[in-house]
């Protein structure tokens, strides 16, 4: 009996070891498949124009190392990427802030106020999270045309504010609703009004949820193509990076020296945000498993 366990143990050890090797190799392979495309783009964007077109990006890793920032200089100065970067900020900052501000009041009302029809109204908000925005494009576009704001930042701000609302209300209500009842009640007993409780108590304690939502919404708006394409259009002085790059694909075709650098510029900010605030971003994604 004892011998049996011993041989079993030794064989088990070998098996476990080979299992570990296999496990690590599989994981490394999957991670490589996921990383290589992005790395390839980054390396290519740093290679001279004449090399990108004739040899694979991996050959840049062999010596002699010939890397250059020329593509970035060109794309920023000539292909309108500098303006587009600022336009993306013009779209994304209000497009993130406005829906969050508006949603916070609604979330508080849904969490801590009583009123008729609260239940079903909240269900409607949740249902709206999944509505394809395509369903709203034609009437909203006609509305903006009537108001004469199609092609202005005001139009995309309004659109993003509205489209971001259902999810923002949902996420913030979840968090605000879980705050301890006793904390709010003692504030009310001390004579605090709803606005005071909201600003002094609820907002400060909800910061983690606000951070998650903010990052999530910022990434969403920054990376959006459709809303900008439809309500802002492709005019260079307003087009954000996603629209400019999509247009470049059509006009430059295979101009890889432009496309690689442009794509990487558009990825830079989200990647910085991702690595700096990964925890909050992932939390937002987790909370957002009903998003759209």
């Amino acid at each position, binding site marked *: 009996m004892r011998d049996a366990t011993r041989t079993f143990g030794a064989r088990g050890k070998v098996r476990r070891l080979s299992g570990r090797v296999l496990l690590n190799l599989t994981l490394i392979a999957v*991670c490589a498949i996921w990383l290589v495309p*992005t790395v390839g783009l980054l390396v290519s964007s740093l290679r001279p124009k004449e090399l990108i077109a004739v040899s694979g990006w991996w050959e840049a890793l062999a010596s002699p190392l010939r890397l250059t920032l020329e593509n970035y200089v060109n794309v920023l100065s000539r292909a309108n990427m500098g303006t587009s970067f600022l336009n993306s900020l013009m779209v994304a900052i*209000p497009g993130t802030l406005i829906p969050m501000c508006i949603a916070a009041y609604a979330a508080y009302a849904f969490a801590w106020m009583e*009123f008729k029809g609260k239940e079903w109204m909240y269900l409607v908000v949740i249902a709206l999270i999944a509505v*394809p925005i*395509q369903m709203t494009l034609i009437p909203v576009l006609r509305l903006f045309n009537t108001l004469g704001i199609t092609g202005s930042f005001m139009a995309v701000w309004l659109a993003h504010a509205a489209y971001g609302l259902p999810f923002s209300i949902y996420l913030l209500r979840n968090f605000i609703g879980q705050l301890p009842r006793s904390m709010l009640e003692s504030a009310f007993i001390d004579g605090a009004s709803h606005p005071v409780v909201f600003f002094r108590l609820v907002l400060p304690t909800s910061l983690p949820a606000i951070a998650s939502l903010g990052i999530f919404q910022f990434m969403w708006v920054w*990376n959006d193509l459709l809303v900008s394409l439809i309500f802002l259009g492709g005019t260079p002085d307003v087009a954000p990076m996603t629209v400019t790059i999509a247009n470049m694909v059509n006009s430059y075709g295979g101009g890889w020296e432009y496309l690689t650098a442009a794509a990487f510029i558009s990825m830079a900010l989200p990647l910085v945000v991702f690595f700096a605030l990964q925890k909050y971003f992932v939390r937002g*994604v987790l909370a957002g498993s009903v998003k*759209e």
Partner: protein
Amino acid sequence: MKFLSLIAAVVSVPALLAVYVFAAERVIAGKRGTGKVSGARPWLWLAPSFILLIVFLAYPIVNTFLISLKDAKADGFVGLANYAHVFTDPGMLVVLRNNAAWLIFFTLGTLGFGLLMAVLSDRVKWEPVAKAAVFIPMAISFVAAGIIWRFMFEFRPAGEAQIGTVNAVLSAIVPAFEPKAWLFDTSSNNVALIAVGIWMWTGFAMVILSAGLKAIPVELIEAARIDGAGELQIFMRVILPLAAPTIAVVATTLMVNVLKIFDIVYVMTNGALGTEVIANRMYKELFNYRNFGRAGAIAVILLVAVAPVMVINIKRFKESRKANA
């Protein structure tokens, strides 16, 4: 000028909202005791949200239904003609076929890789690094991903140096491999596009599945192991059934998103050579053909396709509320 309006928007909206709530409170508190007025408070707090939701979501949804029954300029009613067109036009049938393919293969592929990563990464010490690698595509735009993968699929005729990674790698490892124009070859272009979608969304599936798997009690898995179950058996008989609700959540989310897929196709092929999907077709009807009626009908079909998932979301929400109560 631009930046003045940016600053104006960023400062004035929060400030105005705060002034609005405090002013509303003064009016309500000033008339305390009447009861009727303080009942208005929730509505005043909800008003900014509700106005936006009604103007930009609720009303347009109803309006789009009506437009879908009208002609190209959205003037006269044409009955169900637009829907008849959608379900008989050969181009539209390709679109519907493509969306079905996306729905099935994207969802299964993303779930499969997400589950694989969630299960495997849980067993190594470098879990955070492995997860970050797979999650990165979630942070970038579909447009950037489109560029990345156009470059990956880049094709040069056989004999020339391949600069696209996919053709280069396959040429190196598969004997007598003929380089392929992945995005132009009608037998492979849809597969290539779906692969990009999977690459982008696997991180999402992984994160949520991983959270679900970590919630499974270790004792259950240990008990199965002591009973002599192999790793595969443990996965099939213990982990999968317990993770089923999480898998369902991920699957429904993926399905809603894939039905609306637009950017990948717009950037990579613009719907050429049999790769068009619903959202791209709608965009074309709207901006290239200027046909409001047809565009509306396509949007309605998209909504109908998403509707079951909306119902599931609401049911799930009601259940979780019951469980918490």
